[in-house]
């Protein structure tokens, strides 16, 4: 079956073992995660996992059913790239001497719409938010000047359509 990129969004209670429980669902099915991030959601005390996987639509549907079945999961969704607005964030640490000696670096930073987060006598840190291709392009461009460190976050994503978690929580209350 055709593999696509899917973003799985999981709204959960704040429970210490839940990360393990959700990752175990992927482990059991031998599915690699492209990226994984978690944070507070729009509702107080409700957390949101954003998980990116490359798989087929049948598989992702079944995985989401299994995730949703977990007691501490409020609701899980999956979306294609077209259905979401998503970004990743990357940090690049470069030697300060390069910034002053290589004029080209400044042009690269300007052209990529990256910003400089901090500058010290030894190093400076560039930040870039965007699609994977954009942060990757900047990494490749900076590499020849000696990247001291590079790190990229997991995908964060919001959907174009409504999620309606508050309504879902309300309906659960009525069903129980």
């Amino acid at each position, binding site marked *: 079956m055709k593999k696509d990129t899917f973003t799985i969004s999981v709204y*959960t*209670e704040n*429970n*210490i*073992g839940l990360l*393990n*429980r959700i990752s*175990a669902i992927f*482990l*059991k099915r031998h599915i690699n995660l492209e990226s994984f991030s978690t944070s507070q959601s729009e509702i107080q005390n409700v957390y949101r996992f954003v998980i990116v996987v490359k798989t087929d639509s049948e598989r992702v*549907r*079944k995985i989401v*059913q*299994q995730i*949703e*079945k977990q*007691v*501490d*999961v*409020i609701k899980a969704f999956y979306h294609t790239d077209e259905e979401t607005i998503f970004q990743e964030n990357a940090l690049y640490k470069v030697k300060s001497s390069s910034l002053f000696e290589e004029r080209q670096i400044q042009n690269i930073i300007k052209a990529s719409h990256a910003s400089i987060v901090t500058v010290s006598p030894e190093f400076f840190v560039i930040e870039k938010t965007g699609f994977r291709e954009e942060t990757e392009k900047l990494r490749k461009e900076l590499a020849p000047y000696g990247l001291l460190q590079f790190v990229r976050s997991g995908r964060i994503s919001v959907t174009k359509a409504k999620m309606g978690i508050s309504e879902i*929580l309300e309906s*659960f*209350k009525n*069903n*129980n």
Partner: protein
Amino acid sequence: MGAKTKIKLNIDQSDNKHISGAEAVVRCLLEEDANLVYGYPGGAIMPIYDELYKYQDKLHHVLTRHEQGATHAAQGFARTSGKVGVALATSGPGATNLVTGIADAQIDSTPMVCITGQVASHLLGSDAFQETDIIGISTPVTKWNYQITKANEIPSIMAKAFYIARSGRPGPVLIDITKDAQFEFFDFSYEKCTGIRSYCPYQKLSNQNLEEALLLIDEAKKPLIVWGQGVILGNAEEEFKTFLEKSGIPAAWTILGLSAIPTDHPSNRGMVGMHGNYAPNLLTNECDLLIAIGMRFDDRVTGDLTKYAKQAKIIHLELDPAEVNKNVKVDVALIADCKVSLNELNKRISTKTYPKWIARLKALDKIENEKVIQSDLFPKKEGLTMGESIEMINKYSNNDAIIVTDVGQHQMAACRYAKFSQSKSNVTSGGLGTMGFALPAAIGSKMGAPNREVVAIIGDGGYQMTIQELGTIFQQQVAVKIVVLNNDFLGMVRQWQQLFFDKRYASTEMVNPDFVTIAKGFRIKAKRVADRKDLDIAVKEMMASKEPYFLEVCVEKEDNVFPMIPTGASVSDIRLE
């Protein structure tokens, strides 16, 4: 009789509100009507055991001989009583020994709460003595688990544990309690859990899907029902019987659905799956409508999915939304407790009969009877068969015993030939196929249904995996009847070796001990039978015994279980020999 000390303390426990975490655990169990628990003590759970000692007139603790035995006993108890089974163990090896039983309960949807002791919270993560990450280990095989580090969490978490274990699709819950939380004092109060906002155990039945299902049932000319344990777990036996009688549709069971209706019910057409009956397996690929009720299309039921019921419309009555369209794509899903959905269907379906279709089933039954069943039940060869041994048990149980089985050939023979009159009478390890399940599960089964006759039918291999539970049976004087069908082989594996590995019997021959002497060593009455002429009287004597009783039946060494659908083959490729 096993030695038992009873001590009454002059403390009115119910008045005392400022109590330890350990006492709170016991009080929570009593609040949840769990007055029978199985377990094994050890360092990290000693405070709770100390409270069990004080509460022993209210709560009976059964000391098993291994923690695995405690889980299987709790499972057996849950399966026959319909209540939540409880197992206790200490940290480290005590906790890890529970894992097989927990995994078994998870895959067979058995409500169970396991409580483990844990090292004190300040030692967590320090590789302390008998520390193990049982939360991490048990996560993939529990419905829910939680580690308690503060005594004041105990009441709400215990309430949640029981609620989650028994509601919706039941399953095992593990609660790990650090030793300091057991010692800590707090003000106890208990409130039962009635709902969790993120957890929706019952779905509302879709009216539109109900309409569509009714239409499909109305149009069908060759319908077939396959039911599973959902009927039993949902207490929907009566609704199911009404559905069968009104709809006139023939019905076959999965291994865990067995005993939901009496064996002699006219709609009962036998078992589906790998060693199921010929007719329902073949007709799965001939029917025009398949109604799956409380079952999950396990691979042992379906065989090759690409050749499973492709010609049929499929209606799936299922409580767990994650099971719908998981293995088999269905046309209509009725996602609800099947007690509810069957009741709705019953209100609307018309009474029908399918004489031609049923005649086709009966014609296939005749073939199976001639080629397989006759020689299993009325063998002409010298050696005893498993089938005739089970038939003899039927004779002396009046088809009304709880039959507990292990895993392997004897399990298939027992499920095929044991006869039942009441629901919740078939206790077996279905999904996980846990050898060693039956002996401890029989203990729990008997304690969960003390007025019923409980017969454990076990192979010589699986029996030796948990044989130490004979000690529990003797100490507790649990009047179970234990039948070992001994063929001196790991029979099912040997059968596969014969059929698919050119008879290379790699490590399947068992050089067995004297089972009768072993049982007698545990002070249990025991007998061996090897001749057909002695079988009747031996079974009769066993069934008449008021005490635990062990019977070894030496059966034909190299018998095979048929029919059989080889792994990965289609249900249409079912073999009779």
